[in-house]
């Protein structure tokens, strides 16, 4: 199951990076509809984006970012073949990462 999807679109060496991460982003305030038990807080805390091992963007987030977080942003001076790495870590220490080659 792919947990991260990254799409890139480059024009004039500026790349729009669009990333979607599959994650429940539980606030810790929601009750299980069947049992009535509170579902524990579970959310992404940090998203990091590297371009060829250099940090270009970091996000710190709380529970106010929607389920299955989506982020889009720009990076500049991008060359064909550059490698983009996007990774996340959540409050339970779970993490994932993906590498994409810029076309």
């Amino acid at each position, binding site marked *: 199951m792919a947990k991260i999807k990254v799409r890139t679109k480059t024009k004039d060496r*500026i790349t*729009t990076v*669009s990333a979607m991460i599959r994650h429940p982003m539980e*606030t810790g*305030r*929601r009750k299980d509809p069947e049992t009535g038990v509170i579902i524990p807080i579970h959310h992404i*805390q*940090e998203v*990091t*984006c590297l*371009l060829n091992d*250099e*940090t*270009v*963007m*970091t*996000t*710190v*987030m*709380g*529970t*106010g*970012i*929607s*389920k299955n*977080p*989506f*982020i*889009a*942003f*720009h*990076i*500049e*001076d*991008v060359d064909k073949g550059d490698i983009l790495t996007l990774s996340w870590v959540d409050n339970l220490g779970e993490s994932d990462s993906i590498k994409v080659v810029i076309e």
Partner: protein
Amino acid sequence: MNSRRGFLKSLGYGLILLKTGLLFPLKTLAAWPKKAFSSEEPQDAIRALFGDRTITESDRIHIDMPRGAENGAIVPITVRTDLKNVQSISLIAEKNPIALLAQFSFNGKGRGDYLRTRIKLAKSSHVFVIVEAGGELCSAKRYIEVLKGGCD
């Protein structure tokens, strides 16, 4: 050769420090600011992030967000700015249980001129955007009607 390389290296590092305006290693940038994310009130979150620094309202920050949302669980928001050397963009909801939604930091080739994400909103309120650019703090806000709260 070695000293020249060393010089270039330290020059590059110095430029990074200048650009981010920070004098500690880049890794600590990503440290999750627990205090900022435990504040209910926007001003407490802002203080936790930026201390008592002055924030100026700016018409160079454009917030694209619907005027109303039936469901506050998924509200798309786009921030555009022509401010130069954007270091970070912070999103804050006026009436959410936790005011700070997220802070996006840009380094090196990361451009802070455009940001798009999806946020949760508990009720009708303002959304505040704070852009840190060239060492200055600038802000903008937009009001949105929310019919069904999305913060449970």
